[in-house]
C-alpha cells in the first residue's frame, strides 16, 4: 500500500521509505515556514531544526543567512502535496483527492511586523518634519529602503490560490515597495548632496543613480523569479492534463469493451460476474490508488497474482470467487519474496478452487520478515490425510517457502475453514533474524 515515494532510492530488498521534497508549508509555520519545511524534509522534530537555526545566528549570522536564503529559494507549498504531484501522473490515482482539512487562520506575524515598522517610520518622519533632530541621519533612509525591499520581496511568499487576486496584490506590493525604496534612496542622496561641495556633486549623483538602479533591480528580481516559476508550473500542469486525458480514454475504452462482452454473453452469469469483477478491479486501481512502477513493489506484484487467480480460477460450483486483499507495508521484491509470492499463488488457487468464499489474503511486510495469510471458509481438510503424492500443498506451497528458510503452516477445521500461514525472513539491512524465528521454523 505504501506509495512509491518521491525521490526515494529504490534499493532491492529495502523497505520503501518516504522523503518529502523541500517546501515551505502554510501550516505550523512561525514565520516563513523554513524550519517546518526543513523538518518535514529531513524527518527531524521541528523544535530541533529551530534550535539549530537560532544557535547558528550568533555564528557570523549563518543561521539568519541560511534562513533568508531558504526563504527566497524554497517555494511555498505542502510537502505532501508536492510529493504526490512529483509522481509520474500516469501512476497517480484519477479520482479527485479529498480536500485537506482547513486549519485555523494563522496570525500573520510577518504582515503585522511590517505594518508596525511602517507606522514607526511614518512617526519618525513626522517627528523630523516638526523639527526633531536625529543623531543618526543615515538610519532612517536605510530603514525606508529596507522596508520597501522587504515589501516587494514578500510577494515571493504570496500563495498562488486566487490567480487574479494574487496578481493584483503582488502588483500593489511591487509599487509600494518600489515607492518606498525610491524615497529611501532619494533621502540618502539628498543627505549626501546637502552637505557636499561642487566637485563631489557629480560623483554623488552617479552614486545616487547607481543606488536607484540597484534598488529597482532588487525590487524587480522576485517578480521575475516568480514569473519564471509559474510558467514552469503551468507547463507541467498542461503536460499532466494531456496524460490524464489519455488515461481516461484508455479506461473508457476498456469499460466499453467489457460492457460489449457482457452483453454478448448475458446468458452466462458466471462469465458476466467474472468480467464485472475484473473490470471493477481495474477501475478501482486506476481511480483510487497510486500505481507502482513495475518491479518496484511487492504489493503491486501480489495484486497482479490475485488478479490472475480471480480471472482464471473458479469455485467448486464454477462461480467466480473474489479475493479480499489486505496489505500492510511494502518493499522492493527480491528472489525470496518472489518464491513467497509463488507459494501464495498456489495457496490462493487451493482456497478458490477447493474452499468456500469469502477468501481473505493478508500480507504483512515487517522489518525482518514478510508474512502471508490465506484463508477460506471451506470444510477444511486434514493435512495428514493428504498423501505425499499430492504435489499441491506439500511441494508447491510449503516446500517452496521452507527451502528458502521460511516457515509454512496450515491450520484447518470444519468450523473455521482453512488458513495457510507463510512467513519468509528477509534481510532488511543485513540484520540478523530474531531468535524466536528460528524456533518457529520447526513448526
Amino acid at each position, binding site marked *: 500500500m505504501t506509495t512509491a515515494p518521491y525521490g526515494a532510492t529504490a534499493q532491492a530488498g529495502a523497505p520503501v521509505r518516504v522523503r518529502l521534497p523541500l517546501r515551505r508549508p502554510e501550516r505550523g509555520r512561525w514565520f516563513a515556514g523554513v524550519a517546518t519545511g526543513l523538518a518535514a524534509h529531513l524527518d527531524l522534530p521541528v523544535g530541533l531544526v529551530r534550535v539549530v537555526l537560532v544557535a547558528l545566528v550568533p555564528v557570523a549570522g549563518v543561521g539568519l543567512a541560511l534562513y533568508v536564503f531558504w526563504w527566497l529559494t524554497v517555494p511555498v507549498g505542502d510537502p505532501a502535496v508536492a510529493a504526490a504531484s512529483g509522481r509520474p501522473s500516469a501512476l497517480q490515482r484519477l479520482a479527485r483527492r479529498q480536500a485537506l482539512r482547513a486549519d485555523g487562520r494563522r496570525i500573520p506575524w510577518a504582515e503585522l511586523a511590517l505594518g508596525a515598522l511602517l507606522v514607526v517610520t511614518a512617526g519618525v518622519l513626522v517627528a523630523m518634519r516638526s523639527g526633531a533632530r536625529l543623531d543618526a541621519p543615515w538610519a532612517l533612509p536605510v530603514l525606508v529602503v529596507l522596508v520597501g525591499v522587504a515589501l516587494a520581496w514578500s510577494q515571493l511568499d504570496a500563495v498562488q490560490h486566487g490567480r487574479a487576486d494574487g496578481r493584483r496584490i503582488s502588483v500593489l506590493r511591487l509599487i509600494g515597495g518600489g515607492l518606498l525604496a525610491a524615497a529611501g534612496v532619494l533621502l540618502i542622496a539628498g543627505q549626501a548632496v546637502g552637505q557636499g561641495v561642487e566637485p563631489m556633486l557629480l560623483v554623488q549623483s552617479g552614486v545616487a543613480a547607481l543606488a536607484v538602479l540597484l534598488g529597482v533591480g532588487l525590487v524587480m528580481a522576485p517578480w521575475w523569479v516568480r514569473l519564471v516559476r509559474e510558467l514552469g508550473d503551468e507547463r507541467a500542469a498542461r503536460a499532466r492534463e494531456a496524460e490524464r486525458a489519455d488515461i481516461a480514454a484508455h479506461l473508457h475504452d476498456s469499460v466499453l469493451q467489457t460492457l460489449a462482452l457482457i452483453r454478448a454473453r448475458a446468458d452466462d452469469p458466471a462469465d458476466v460476474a467474472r468480467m464485472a469483477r475484473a473490470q471493477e478491479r481495474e477501475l478501482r486501481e486506476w481511480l483510487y490508488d497510486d500505481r507502482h512502477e513495475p518491479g518496484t513493489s511487492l504489493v503491486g506484484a501480489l495484486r497482479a497474482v490475485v488478479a490472475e487467480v480471480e480471472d482464471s480460477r473458479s469455485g467448486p460450483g464454477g462461480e467466480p470467487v473474489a479475493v479480499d486483499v489486505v496489505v500492510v507495508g511494502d518493499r522492493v521484491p527480491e528472489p525470496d519474496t518472489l518464491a513467497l509470492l509463488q507459494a501464495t499463488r498456489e495457496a490462493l488457487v487451493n482456497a478458490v478452487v477447493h474452499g468456500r468464499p469469502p477468501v481473505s489474503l493478508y500480507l504483512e511486510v515487517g*522489518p525482518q520478515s514478510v508474512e502471508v495469510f490465506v484463508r477460506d471458509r471451506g470444510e477444511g481438510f486434514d493435512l495428514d490425510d493428504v498423501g505425499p503424492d499430492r504435489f499441491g500443498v506439500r511441494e508447491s506451497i510449503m516446500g517452496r517457502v521452507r527451502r528458502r528458510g521460511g516457515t509454512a503452516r496450515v491450520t484447518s477445521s470444519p468450523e473455521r475453514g482453512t488458513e495457510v500461514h507463510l512467513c519468509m525472513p528477509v534481510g532488511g539491512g543485513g540484520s540478523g533474524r530474531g531468535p524466536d524465528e528460528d524456533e518457529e521454523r520447526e513448526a
Partner: protein
Amino acid sequence: MNEPVDVVLVDDHHMFRAGVKASLDARVRVVGEAATVDEAVQVVHDLRPPVVVLDVHLPGGDGGGGAEVVRRCVDVPGTRFLALSVSDAAEDVVAVIRVGARGYVTKAIDATALSDAVLRVAGGDAVFSPRLAGFVLDAFGAAAGDVATGDDELDRLSAREREVMRLIARGYTYREVAGELFISVKTVETHVSAVLRKLQLSNRNELTRWAAARRLL
C-alpha cells in the same frame, strides 16, 4: 425485537440509495436521505438520527466530502457516523475516520452485514473492516513490532490491540477473534473502540508521515 434504528442515508447516487434502502432489514429504518454535503448537514440537524450512513465522496459544501459533513455536524450530540465508500484507498477512509466516524465499510458489503454494522455503530461500538484494520497496522507501524507498554499511550497500539487488528485484517469476524484469543466478544469490541480512539486522537509522528505519503493529513 427492539425498535428499529433510525438511519439517514447520504450518498450522491440515487440508484445506490434506493438499493441500500431496499436491502436493509427490519432492524433498520431509513428516515431521511441526502445527496450533497449541504443537504446532509441540514437533514442531520433536522432529524438528529442515531446513525448516519455516509458516503466518503460527496459533492457540494467546501469540497470536503463525507469528512466535511462529520465536521459540520459535531454540534449534533448522539449522532454517529458510519462511512461507506466504493473507494478503499487509505486516504479516503482514514480522513473520514480521523474527523470522527465510528466505522467504515465498502459498498461491496452485503445487506445483512451492513445492517449489523449500523446496529453496532448505534450501540456505540466501532466497525472495522479488514481493510481498515490493515490501514491501522500500517499507520501505527505495528508491523515493525512497535508496541505500546502503557495503557494510556495514544501513539502506539498495545500488544493485544495489535493481535486483534491482525486477526481482523486476516478476515476474522469479531466472534472468531474472540474464539481465537480466548476472550469475550465484548472485550474484542472494547479493544476495537480503543484502537479507533487512538486513530482519531493520535498525533504520532509516524502517522502523519504515513498519511503524508498518501496525502491526507
